[in-house]
């Protein structure tokens, strides 16, 4: 398989996704900085990866204000690891005055005090605050080779703190297994989480995006894995999250959470700048189309 970088972009012939409505705004609130270095990470996050920087509360606020004017429905915070951002709680507090928020975390930095802080924020808002925790296996033996040594036990501690504080975290796993094993693994996940004390487990499986570190681990997209007008015929663009959401990072506003390392995916400096169609010229676009994937809950 050729490396991902060798694939020519075919933006000129790619179909465009219409921009339908700005419903969801994402924040790359921890940039590409993470305390883990998962080997399937599609944006190669690590403790030293500064492609996108941590966003301050002052940087986030104008986008929240703009989102409020534009009538945004909900907000998502990711990284990297959002809890590396020291202003995360204040940013969430600002957000929960406007609308519901979801934090995507690896849970390894969630202490008792942080879980209590989150519970306090949640109780103080009419809107839901969701915690979404990434896990890639039910034992250290299966999880840690992907997410790093010790990450399983650390995540479990964080998950228990979230459960104790009254959260019902959504567990996100990236599908690193075959479709044939899917049903069995989902059942196992549910059983495991129930045993852990998460009374009402919610599970979200995401497909692999073969870019970033994942492209090095396995392989990137083949040239044929690109969308054409033919793919879009009869396809409801509502099913692609890029028709209704945008991603804000320290470098500007991007079309979606997946493509923030793709320079042409930066659509502008403000949300309003980016409310236009986008050419679906990239390998991950094919994955979203084929799997129906959405980064939303």
């Amino acid at each position, binding site marked *: 398989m050729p490396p991902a970088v060798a694939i020519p972009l075919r933006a000129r012939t790619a179909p465009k996704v219409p921009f339908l*409505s700005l419903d969801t705004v994402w924040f790359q609130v921890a940039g590409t900085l993470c305390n883990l270095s998962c080997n399937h990470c599609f944006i190669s996050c690590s403790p030293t990866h500064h492609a996108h920087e941590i966003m301050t509360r002052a940087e986030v606020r104008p986008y929240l204000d703009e989102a409020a004017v534009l009538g945004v429905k909900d907000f998502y915070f990711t990284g990297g690891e959002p809890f590396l951002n020291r202003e995360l709680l204040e940013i969430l507090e600002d957000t929960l005055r*406007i609308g519901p928020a979801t934090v995507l975390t690896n849970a390894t930095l969630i202490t008792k005090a942080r879980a209590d802080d989150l519970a306090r924020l949640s109780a103080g808002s009419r*809107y*839901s605050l*969701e915690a979404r925790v990434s896990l890639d296996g039910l034992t250290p033996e299966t999880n840690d080779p992907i997410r790093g040594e010790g990450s399983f036990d650390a995540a479990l501690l964080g998950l228990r703190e979230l459960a104790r504080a009254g*959260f*019902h975290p959504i567990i996100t796993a990236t599908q690193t297994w075959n479709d044939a094993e899917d049903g069995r693994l989902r059942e196992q996940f549910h059983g495991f989480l129930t045993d852990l004390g998460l009374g*009402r487990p*919610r599970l*979200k499986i995401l497909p692999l995006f073969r870019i970033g570190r994942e492209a090095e681990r396995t392989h990137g997209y083949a040239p044929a894995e690109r969308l054409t007008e033919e793919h879009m015929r009869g396809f409801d663009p509502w099913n692609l999250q890029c028709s209704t959401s945008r991603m804000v990072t320290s470098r500007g506003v991007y079309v979606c959470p997946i493509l923030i390392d793709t320079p042409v995916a930066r659509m502008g400096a403000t949300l309003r700048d980016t409310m236009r169609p986008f050419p679906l010229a990239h390998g991950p676009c094919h994955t979203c189309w084929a799997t129906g994937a959405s980064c939303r809950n």
Partner: protein
Amino acid sequence: MIASGELTLNGPDLDGALAFLGGPYSNHLALRAVLEDARGRGAGRIFCLGDLGGFGPNPGKIIPLLEEFGVITIAGNYDMALAARMAECGCGYTHPSDNQFAQLSYDYTNRRTTDAERAWLGKLPTAIRFPRAGRRYLLCHGSPRRTNEFLWESASSDVFLARLARDAAADQVLCTHTGIHWQRALPDGPGFINVGAVGRPANDGRPAIWYAFLAPGDHVAEMIAVSYDHNALAREMEAEGLPAEFVETIRTGWWTTCLEILPAKERSRGKF
């Protein structure tokens, strides 16, 4: 999906007492109890916001009840799916286990829906508009823009709801689809009322079901809980071989299925 379009109503009685009910889901005993309650309170018109089938037993009992009480009905995603003979209900769940239970109900209902009923469902409007006491009312199933969009109380920002109302040229929006009732008067004017569902209880630990009632001239609804013979419905569901999980919900008032879709706050209030 079939789109029969909007129905516009006019008349002085629209300023009077009105009743609004959501998803009957084949729960004909609850539906009759609600309709009698609404009539007893003097509702001049009664509206049903769609999703006649699913969940409950013997779907054929719903349309005759709606006709008996002169209920003005709009199409939900379920009704559109049945009318179009689709293979699934289009409920919009994102989790496989939710979809599995949704499919069980849909297959049961689909098998028992006659051609005449499909034609009846196919003629339903997708939205209703009317003026009431100086406001432009819009009745829809999910949201003003998407029949199968969920508008949960804790997952819908004020600014988003205001935009939906503005884009739909409405001052007051009534919807259902989620199965849990709520209402909100937005700071800059428009109001949203999710009327809940008649077909199953509101995940609040009581078997009663809920609907929305507007007193003459009012824009703020009274949410009314109605008790009915839920044990009789449970027995009928068992006789029809419907899933034990559904029957438990009817008996206890707690949702047991399709929970994955609930936002954090709504989930926390339930038992499962």
